[in-house]
């Protein structure tokens, strides 16, 4: 049984069989923000898929055949083709599957979404260093840097005068940024958006999106996961199951 809420596969597990026709498989981890991007796109486009969660603290030997560094997300289709890197997986799904278009058709608007993503690019590593920080004194410095990055996004939203980063409806760029904003609460980083009112409104609007809300994780669960993950516990990835 392989779903969003399935126990992760670890060392010693049997490798999964081939991907059934008509479905695509995503190797994931319930709390990974990069894998969440892919799951958001799969859901938003209504793509028939199966999820195999990987225990990132106790990786199955067979998983290194899918990705030599054992990272998630990885897509595998029924032809056995593998696609890595969250952004590449999301663009692949957009191009390979019909249904709701998440990227604009216009080449310039498409380029704008990619340029916007560049503005966001420092956020994942900043949040990662906040989670991993050894000295509490480093906290204020990281928060300052985060605030700086968030102001850039605030400026972009102000200039566009729309609710979402791609216009008045949700599109790819919003899904690609969302997972990190979902984690602000659990990391007690909400103060970093205190002076970015448009960004706060965007976050509220995102929470109302059916796709986003169907995949949302609450702050307490994140905190439980972070605690175990930072202790390198092999139970971390299955927290809450």
């Amino acid at each position, binding site marked *: 049984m392989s779903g969003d809420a399935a126990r992760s596969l670890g060392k010693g597990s049997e490798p999964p069989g081939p991907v059934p026709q008509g479905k695509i498989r995503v190797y994931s981890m319930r709390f990974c923000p990069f894998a969440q991007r892919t799951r958001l796109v799969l859901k938003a486009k209504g793509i028939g898929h199966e999820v195999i969660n990987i225990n990132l603290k106790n990786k199955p030997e067979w998983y290194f055949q899918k990705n030599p560094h054992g990272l998630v997300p990885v897509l595998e289709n029924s032809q056995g*083709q593998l*696609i890595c890197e969250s952004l*590449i997986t999301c663009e*692949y799904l957009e191009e390979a599957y019909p249904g709701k278009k998440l990227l604009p058709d216009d*080449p*310039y608007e498409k380029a704008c979404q*990619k*340029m916007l993503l560049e503005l966001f690019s420092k956020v994942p590593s900043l949040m990662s260093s906040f989670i991993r920080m050894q000295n509490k004194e480093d906290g204020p410095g990281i928060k300052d840097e985060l605030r700086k990055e968030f102001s850039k996004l605030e400026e972009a939203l102000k200039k566009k005068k729309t609710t979402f980063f791609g216009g008045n409806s949700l599109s790819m760029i919003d899904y690609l940024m969302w997972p990190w904003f979902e984690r602000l609460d659990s990391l007690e980083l909400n103060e970093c958006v205190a002076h970015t009112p448009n960004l706060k409104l965007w976050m509220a609007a995102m929470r109302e999106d059916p796709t986003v809300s169907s995949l949302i994780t609450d702050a307490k669960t994140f905190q439980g996961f972070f605690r175990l993950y930072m202790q390198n516990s092999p139970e971390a990835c299955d927290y809450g199951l």
Partner: protein
Amino acid sequence: MSEPRPGNSSMSCRQRCASGLRTTGLLGAVFQNSSLGQEGAQQYLEPTAADSHREAPVRAEDWADPCREMMAGDSSRTLSKGSCPPGPVPDGVIRLYSMRFCPYSHRTRLVLKAKGIRHEIININLKNKPEWYYTKHPFGQVPVLENNQCQLIYESVIACEYLDDAYPGRKLFPYDPYERARQKMLLELFCKVPQLTKDCLVALRCGRDCTELKATLRREFCNLEEILEYQNTSFFGGSRISMVDYLFWPWFERLDVYGLSDCINHTPMLQVWMATMKQDPTVCALLIDKGIFLGFLNLYFQNNPNAFDFGLVY
């Protein structure tokens, strides 16, 4: 990491560099089930009948209006601080803000040429940037594309993708979504090369030891060599030159003039790829003369703001 043993061409690159080979998370995926190297599997790069009539070669009169060429061609003097901002982009043309020796801009110039896109080039003095240039790019970087609707596109890869999307003629990216994804994964595999080559160049020019840096660069080249070995195709994208080859090329063209030619000593397929690339008409047309490049580098490392115009006749 120990130096690879020379002269043992029967071993694969992986074996030669075994002690130092560091695969990225992408090699596995990139090797899987691609149709590349298989007979009859190149359709995704073949233009359709409808495309082929649009693939007109670039004619001299299409290239640039001779009156404009003096101020806005591949070989025009840079604009610096105190210069007047250029006017709007004329109809039927796209403008590229560039610098003759910049590898990132080089990518965009290759795509413009390969697709036969009418364009004008404004070179920017990167050590003495015009104030108005910050309205085109927040940090004053090149390349930037500007069209006649005043739309600006920056970041070299985004600019190249935009051109492939927006203009007709031969598509440089494959049509097949998986093959497109594969080209992007290959680009990830390459992503450390630009910074590494720059670091090596700076170290060499400043008389610092760069043994470690060069060893790291060689390891990155080994990853790319493995891909070519596995695929057994002339180009990274298959049997025809495509986007990924153009995106890689500028740094390989610079290996010689940067003093890093020995970094491909043990990657024979990469050497063959480079030789093949040099025969491509687009690559060939934009090849930079070694003497001029060296002149530029000498002035650049002396912080001379005239570096960027080195080699221009007028």
